[in-house]
Structures are given as C-alpha cells and as structure tokens.
C-alpha cells in the first residue's frame, strides 16, 4: 500500500478514535453505532481507574476530602481529561490544585505540614 493511502487511513482512524475518547473522557456525543450503555460502562471504568491512581498518588488529599473525594474527582476529571503525554503525578497535583482553587481543600501550607507529620 502506498503512503497516501496510509495517510488517508490514518486520518479516518484518527477521527473515529478521537470521537470515541471525547465521548468517554469529556462527555462528548456518543459516536454512531456504539451501544450507549456500554459506553457508559467503559466511561465509568476509565474514570474509576484514573481516580484510583490519583488516590494512590495523593492519599493525603483523598483523606482530607473524605466522602467528597469521589464526586469532586469525577467533576474534575470531566472538566480536565488527561492530555496525551501528561503524567499521572501531574494529574494528581492538578486535581489537588483544582480543589484548593475551589476552596474544597485547605491551603498548601497546611497540606505540607500534614505531609511532614505523616511521613
């Protein structure tokens, strides 16, 4: 197959994959032909995996938020789908920052203090 055909195939595939990730990660419209229920299952699975990683990387934040951690993280995640090339630690830091900005988490100084105390 020649380069041009491959380029066209890449473009078509890129459009479909992007459409799917938009639907799954930032509540974009359901792409044609997909089972909406299954899409929701996948969406929850991806969200839960990402939430688990952020909880693991920032247990102090999760502990401080307690029961609010899950709803807050889910709201944050839809607003901030992970960018290609970003790292999980950046995701955890950005979530903590987002919580502080919205006043859900106490200021950084206290968080640091707690960090030193617990470690």
């Amino acid at each position, binding site marked *: 197959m020649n380069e041009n055909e491959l380029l066209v195939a890449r473009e078509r595939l890129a459009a479909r994959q992007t459409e*799917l*990730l938009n639907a799954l*990660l930032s509540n974009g419209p359901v792409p044609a*032909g997909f089972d909406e229920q299954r899409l929701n299952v996948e969406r929850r699975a991806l969200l839960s995996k990402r939430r688990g990683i952020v909880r693991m990387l920032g247990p102090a934040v999760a502990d401080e938020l307690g029961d609010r951690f899950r709803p807050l993280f889910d709201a944050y995640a839809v607003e901030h789908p992970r*960018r*290609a090339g970003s790292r*999980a630690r950046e995701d955890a830091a950005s979530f903590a920052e987002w919580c502080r900005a919205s006043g859900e988490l106490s200021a950084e100084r206290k968080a640091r203090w707690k960090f030193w105390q617990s470690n």
Partner: protein
Amino acid sequence: MVGIKDLGVGIGWRSEIDLTVERLPGVDFVEVVAENLHIGHLPESVTLLLERGVPVLPHAVSLSLGGADPVDLHRVEHLGAVAEAVGAPMVSDHVCFVRAGGLDSGHLMPVPRTKDALDVLVANVKLAQANLPVPLALENVAALLEWPDGELSEGQFLAELVERTDCWLLVDVANLYANARNIGTDPERFLDEIPLERLAYVHVAGGEQHGDIYHDTHAHAVLPEVLEVLDELCSRVAPPGVLLERDDNYPSDTEIATELAAIRAVVDKHRG
C-alpha cells in the same frame, strides 16, 4: 526463535511484591512494565533475579500501536533500552490505542477491526520493530465495548497482523474470557484462527464479575473459567511460557504460590 522456548511459569514483577517474587518457589521468569523502569537504575530485585538467571521480559503499555497518531519513537527506544538492560529475548505491548486527538485514555482501548485500522497498526508495528533490538510480541486486550463495524473477527485480525508484520503473539486468556463474557467473542474460534506457532507466551490474570460485566482487574483471584480457557489453549499447543499478572490488592505469598501452582498444573496436564 532462540531463548523464548520453555520460559515456564512466571509472574509479573511489581515493586510492591518484589521480595515475594524473589522467594516464591516456581517462578521461572518474570515480566517488568517497561514504563516503570529507568535505564541505569534497575531495581535491586530485578538485578538479583537476573543474577539468578531468571529471564526478565519487558512489557510495554504505552506504545499505542493501534493508534492513528504516528508512533512515539522515544517510547519505542525506551522499551528497546530496557530490553538490552535486562538482556531480554523479546518485548511486548498490546493491540490497542491509548492516545488519540491529544487525549490520554489511561487504558488499553480496543481498535476497530477494519482495514483502515489494520493498515495503520501494521505500519506502526513495522516501524516499532525496525527500532527494537529484539522481536516484538503483541497482546490481545480486554474490551468493554465493541466498535460497530468490525470487518474481521478478533482472531482473523490478529492472524492478518502476524502475516503482515511477522510479529509474535502474547495471548491473554483472561482477556479472551472477558471478551467472551462482555462482547461475545468465542475463545475457541479465536484460538482456531490465530497462528499458534507464533505464540510467544500466555498471560493469566484475575478479575471480578460486576453485574453483567466482567472486569479484568488484575486485583482479584484468577477464575476457574479463565484456567479453562488456558486449558483449551494448552490442548492445542504447548505454550512456551505462562505468566500470572497481579497489579493490586496483593494477596499472601501462599495465595500467589497457589495460583502459580494451579497454572502449572494446567500446563503440565497437557505435557503428559
């Protein structure tokens, strides 16, 4: 192929269970997640296993070879460097995409089984192969959803991939079971369709049924049904190796040893 024959039974090396992996009886080989390793700073435990002569195979999760984006050669290079650092006979990743349109799904997403997707995958795999020092094996993933317009079955899709790239196959029997439960793939048909002579090794993992969905969590016990799929595979071919993947909620050493023994029993049954 030299070095990949008779790997035996192995387990995914994870830093949380490094001492467990070192002292477990019957660990013939291990797999490391390539992205978690830094060249020049191999974990002490991995070095120790290498000194003991235990083969260490790098397994990648981020190449996104089924993705429309051009292959990230830095990632391929890192995988190759890890392979050289541990003297691995082979490396692996998945038939999936991870990134698209500037977003990262954080997981292994299935690709549509269309001609377009296959063409792109083949081109990506060839480029990766050209930049790797050792052969590449590709693994079937667990899917929770099905692309609407698949032109090929999963087995046919992988057979085509092998035909066109000469890659090896890493068959995950837990993923086969998951796909059977969740999207109705027939594991036997899959095994009939793939070129078993290109089987590098096999993955086994645990999961959990949640309502009508089976989740391939790698954080629960291996189901007997998954071992049945392994049994089916072993009835067709003697796999060069079988590896248990456990990534979270690590059970006791005894429990892990029991799972490894159960896997070995299935493999040995067919070796007679």
